[in-house]
């Protein structure tokens, strides 16, 4: 197991390092269009071939990694923190708080947020830079993605609230924020980890889907999401298997993340 974790660590570090060295590894940049070779298969010049307008896919994967690997976990952190705050606190406080929070999350889960996103795009100026557009998008995703796990967390926290060790802690003088932070929150970890880990790919994909609304990463900036969406037009994966590389890479990184995250649970 330890070996696996070391390997996971190496993979994550290597991917980060590669993406940071994108300037040297792919000197052509992510936007340069090799117009003589659109949709080309892998070659010495283009390790993963080129996309439909002739941009080097390898460069796009490297640069896309930078954005997605940084921002998706950040957004996942925001949503996990919100879930912990709303769900954990409501469950811990119980009573009317729990009822209100549950009603709120239920409502939140069923509203058509698509229209909020469309409105947000309308409020932004048209000439927003690609980077701020992607920052805003991930922020919104982080702010909207907490409700489902908050619902589970409220149940966990509510169970904990009545558990022996919390009663014991309370009896021995711990109360308020301290009790919540030290005794309740750590016990919510399984759900929080799951929320964090699931949110990363979900947000990466959502970002690409929001491109339809004029949000997300704007052309020519690449992101993992837009690379994954390339798969949608493929009717046969046998024809151009190299287009699966971004997907494979994301799965490997995600699995490595999971190994690094949950060491105590695994070793248990």
């Amino acid at each position, binding site marked *: 197991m330890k070996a696996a974790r070391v390997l996971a660590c190496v993979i994550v570090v290597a991917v980060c390092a590669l993406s940071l060295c994108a300037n040297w590894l792919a000197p052509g940049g992510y*936007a340069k*269009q090799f*117009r003589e070779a*659109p949709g080309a298969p892998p070659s010495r010049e283009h390790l993963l071939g080129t996309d*439909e*307008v*002739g941009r080097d896919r390898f460069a796009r994967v490297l640069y896309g990694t930078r954005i997605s690997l940084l921002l998706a976990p950040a957004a996942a952190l925001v949503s996990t923190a919100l879930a912990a705050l709303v769900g954990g606190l409501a469950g811990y406080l119980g009573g009317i708080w729990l009822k209100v929070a549950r009603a709120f999350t239920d409502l939140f889960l069923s509203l058509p947020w698509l229209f909020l996103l*469309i409105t947000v*795009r*309308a409020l932004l100026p*048209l*000439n*927003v*830079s*690609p980077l701020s557009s992607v920052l805003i998008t991930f922020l919104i995703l982080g702010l909207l993605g907490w409700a489902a796990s908050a619902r589970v967390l409220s149940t966990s926290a509510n169970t904990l609230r009545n558990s022996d060790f919390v009663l014991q802690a309370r009896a021995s003088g711990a109360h308020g924020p301290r009790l919540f932070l030290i005794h309740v929150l750590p016990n919510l970890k399984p759900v929080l980890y799951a929320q964090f880990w699931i949110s990363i790919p979900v947000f990466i994909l959502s970002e690409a889907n929001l*491109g*339809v*609304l*004029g949000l997300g990463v*704007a*052309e*020519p900036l690449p992101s993992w999401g837009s690379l994954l969406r390339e798969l*949608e*037009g493929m*009717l046969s994966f046998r024809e151009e298997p190299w287009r699966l590389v971004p997907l494979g890479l994301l799965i490997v990184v995600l699995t490595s993340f999971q190994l690094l995250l949950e060491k105590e649970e695994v070793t248990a």
Partner: protein
Amino acid sequence: MIGRRTKFHFVMCFALLCCVGSIATNAWAQNGGDLRFCVRSEPKTFDPLLVDDDSSLSIRYLTGGVLARVNRHTQELEPELAESWKVSPDSKQITFKLRHGVHFSDGTPFAADDVAFTVQRLMDPALHSNTGDAFRSGSGAVTTKVIAPDQIAITFPAPVVGLDRMFDEVAIMSAHSAKKEGAVLGPFMVAEYKPGSSVRLERNPYYWKKDAQGRRLPYLDSIHIDIQGNRDVEMLRFKRGEIDLINVIDTDYFDRLASSSPQLVHDAGPSLDSDFMWFNEVGNAPIPEYKRAWFGSVNFRRAISEAINRDDLARIVYNGHAQPAVGPISPANKFWFNSHLKAEAHNPQGALERLKADGFHMQNGTLVDKSGNQVEFSIVTNAGSKARERMSVLIQEDLGKIGIKVNLVPLDFPSLIERITHTFNYEAAMLGFRNIDLDPNGQMNIWLSSASNHAWNPEQKSPATAWEAEIDKLMREQASTADLKKRKQAFDRVQEIVYEQAPLIYLINQNALSAVSTSVAGASPGILYPQTFWNAERLTLNGTTTAKR
């Protein structure tokens, strides 16, 4: 019990018998089969006079009977329910002599009062029918006069040019049938509609047309139209043989099919459709004053037009299945196209010259205007169109080469429409125009400065520029005479002005690409809508596939 294998053998034998029969007598083909294809959205209406979307249009084409029809192959007008017609010299009146012995699909006889009823309903201003609006050239009521049961005169308050051809769009409804729009005169009738999933058409047993051997058309028993918005799924089902044709196929799929089975795909050459972009020139649009000044300058617009590499757009985005566009009329529209004009050549140097004339200059690799504002603008386009997204990426780089920064903003369609028609909160937009009308009169609401579809600056009280005033004058001129030569002259000049002023920057005319399964006999895909099934009544299905289903 018949085993599975036996049954299979049985089917095979049956198919074989059919084949043999077909070679021997060629008679089997007359008996039916179920043609299948997909439309991309839910049909919004079955009322033939209110049709405004592709799916409803397809259904109207297959079910509706018209007085005269434009032959999709020869582009000539041919008699259908009317045996003959006469347009008065002032283009205000048309008199139809109707065919005898024709019945609606429910058996009600067809007569002149049905035509009167249809025209009156069509021209009712409260109906807001786009088909009806096309006939409206002046204010006042339309009068219909039934001269005899087989003869009718329709009089319009003002001259309508190309009057007879416009009846290609008017599906005649029954004045008396209780089934209302369910009673049709076309080769097929709607038998079943499953919302969200499919529409099934059955052959109209009363259809009047017969083939040369005297057999009643259509040959097909039924047409099954699946509602499938996703083109990947459509392609997949075509490859599997679950559907028989794809009316408009994406370039990527076209090439993939062409490489594996070239007999299935058809490239009918440039279509009437075009893609173009334009700049927002609305006077009170919420954009900075200096940008409005750029967009209002012909030098700026022409420079952008010159900086775009249209050959690359056609070659990379459409894989060569497109031609650089010249202007509002596609070269495919042989009569109306102004053949003196050539597509704007890619010329970044020339573009920079033009920009310099307006005081623009380069500063550290970026273009700035005479007051020092960096040249940057956004292009809005509808999301989901792969071709348009790719074109915009290429244009972004083309313009980057002359120091212009372009931001691409794909928007969902309702948001886009709101920006370009209500709030005017956009800088440049890119859209496609799907033209089904050969006559330039169909573009009246684009070119008149007072029209709502005058994209760059709609609904002007009086023309904002001299050249828009000239276009207004020419468009009205061509609409007021029936003299084709004069009309052509006027519209040639409109095309020249549009070329010189570039209010709409035409990019490419895509080719009409379609795919038809080898099981369909008699198909002859063309460039006019509906490309593959315009002769649906004469299409036949191969026996083997019929048996397979």
